[in-house]
């Protein structure tokens, strides 16, 4: 198990290194200035607008996702004793 841990650690280290190299090696396009005071302007409204207009399809799908996982979770978690 110890060896496994070591191995896992090395693998994760490798992965981290790769992602880091990728992330650090990229000159990201960023806005020049972040808003100074985030509290000033809320983007909740924007997000809400997006969700209910542009992303209405994912939203609908998400509802079904929740329903599906609900059914699945209930079914699986339910004991069979009450039958």
């Amino acid at each position, binding site marked *: 198990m110890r060896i*496994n841990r070591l*191995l*896992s650690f090395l*693998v*994760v280290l*490798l*992965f981290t290194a*790769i992602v880091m190299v*990728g992330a650090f090696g990229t000159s990201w396009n960023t806005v020049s200035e972040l808003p100074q005071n985030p509290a000033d302007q809320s983007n909740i409204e924007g997000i809400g607008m997006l969700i209910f207009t542009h992303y209405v399809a994912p939203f609908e799908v998400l509802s079904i996702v929740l329903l599906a996982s609900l059914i699945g979770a209930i079914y699986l978690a339910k004991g069979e004793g009450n039958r």
Partner: protein
Amino acid sequence: MVKTALKEFAFLIPLLPALAFVITFFFGRKMSSGGAIVPILAIAASFVISLVITLRLLANPGEVISQSYSWFAVLNIGVLIDPLAAVMLSMVSFVSLLIHIYAVSYMAGDPGEARYFAETALFTAAMLSLVLSDNILQLFVSWELVGLCSYLLIGFWFERPSAAAAAKKAFLTTRVGDVMFLTGIIILTSDLLKLAGGFQDGTYLLRFDEIFSYIPQLSALHSNIFGFEVSHLTIITLLFFGGAIGKSGQFPLHVWLPDAMEGPTTVSALIHAATMVTAGVYLVARTFPMFIAAPDSLMVIAYLGGFTALFAGTMGIVMNDLKRVLAYSTISQLGYMMLGLGLGSAIGLEAVGISLFHLINHAFFKALLFLCAGSVIHAVGTQDMRELGGVRKVMPITAATMTIAALALAGFGIPGTSIGTSGFFSKDAIIEAAYLFGEHSNNWIPYAFSIAAALLTSIYIFRLIFMTFTGKPRSNYHGHESPAIMTIPLSILAIFALVFGGLTKTGFMDFLKETFANSFVNLNIGSLAALGRNQILEAAGHESLFVQWLPMIVAIAGLAVAFIIYYLRIIKLGPLASMKNPVYRLLYKRYYQHEIYTEFFSLGIVYGIIAFLSQVLDVIIDSIVEGIGILTVGVSEELRKVQTGVIQTYATAVILGVSLLIILVKLITEVL
């Protein structure tokens, strides 16, 4: 031209016996005597047709009967009856007829009677077809069919392991020769194709006239074999001769012939004495123009023929089996015939005449010898000479006819006159030709061979006569004379053996001279003109008396030796003729040829190669294929363990995979 009617009947000669074969094969069992009457009638008809044609040709010199039908591809089936074929046809159908008649009695009561007659009918058909074929391929086909019949008939009593083994041996040994023959045909075909520049419509590639017309070009083609420039014609003719060696039991492929005596005696008489074994001689005679143009091949034939004549004779004198003695005698006589042909380099095309003359005469007296032997065996029930003796008393006709045959074989007659057995004229002609050859080329070896062989011939045949017919019975047997249906053929043959040679001596040769002299063969080989200048017919009688008498002297000497030893029994051969004497043992064991062939060739070399090929190569190839399968399963068994069943491992694999894939892709895209 010969009348069309005759032409149309020519193809019936082999076809009637073939038909007889079919009828006998399917219905023979339901007929009396195995349906023997069908082949007898058919062969009689064939004989009549042959005889009529022969007489016709005799009356109209220079004419041939020739028919060709397309067979397949550029090859044909056809009939060519020239003097050479005509005499062979007549002889074959005649002897075959007599032997069939004889066999009715000889084979009576045998459960396989119908099979016997079917097979001999087939044999006769094939042999006749061989003789009258107008192309080399048909000849080869018939050649193989007679071989098949020989195989079937040797193994006629297949329940006997020795018969089955002998049949196999005969087939295989002759097969070696056949392959050479076939190779010759193949090389010839390909050469002709090249020379003719492809196929021409309307001509059949392998017809003899077609082949002969290309002889000059063929002899001009050369190939380099092991550093020697060899003419293609020489190669082809030697290969043909290879076939003849197998079929005609020449050294070194003669081993099958003595064993072939496992078959019924009638078969030995018909196939292994009179007809089939002479097919080799006939082949060489048939294609003689090619041989004439290839003198090297003729030399080989002469030496090998002469040697075989002598060599077989040496073994003949120690055999105790009645039929085996005759078998070795056959080999020896075939050697004479080959020798006669080989002397063509001295006497030209006339060699065909003298050889064929001996062939025909030999057919009569050898068939007679065998039938007499058969008669003895049939009556007495044993064929070991040591158990016989005094048979003359119970079988006078057989004894008389056999003695005549023996005289013919030994070649008794009075030189310089026309008095003598048929063997005397034909064998003397060959010996004289050998003498001419010696004078011509100063090479006396063939002559020496032929004289020595003549001595041995006389010894062994009279040893046989004396041991069988004179003295006291050496075992308890109950003999009786054979019925008339057997003795009549004996008598007929005896007459022929006695007088045929004397009657036809010059006529025969003249007749055969026409074979290649007519327009059908266009031989314009200038260089060959010199070869035929020693004409034996002219030379006959012009040699010194010694030369004329020498064959007769050695024959009488042989008779005397046999008389002293086996009739008077003055000299006891005890220690000499025992296995302790190495020479005797060598001879008795037939020069260990059987052992050499089976142990050395079939088992040693061939078996070694096979063992190598089969076990090593096949196993290697097979294990490569199987190995891939086994390897895959093995790898699979190991590789499946990657799937440990532990989720953590799975996750590790995913991450490791992602990391490595990124690195790999990065590396490769950087490098490319």
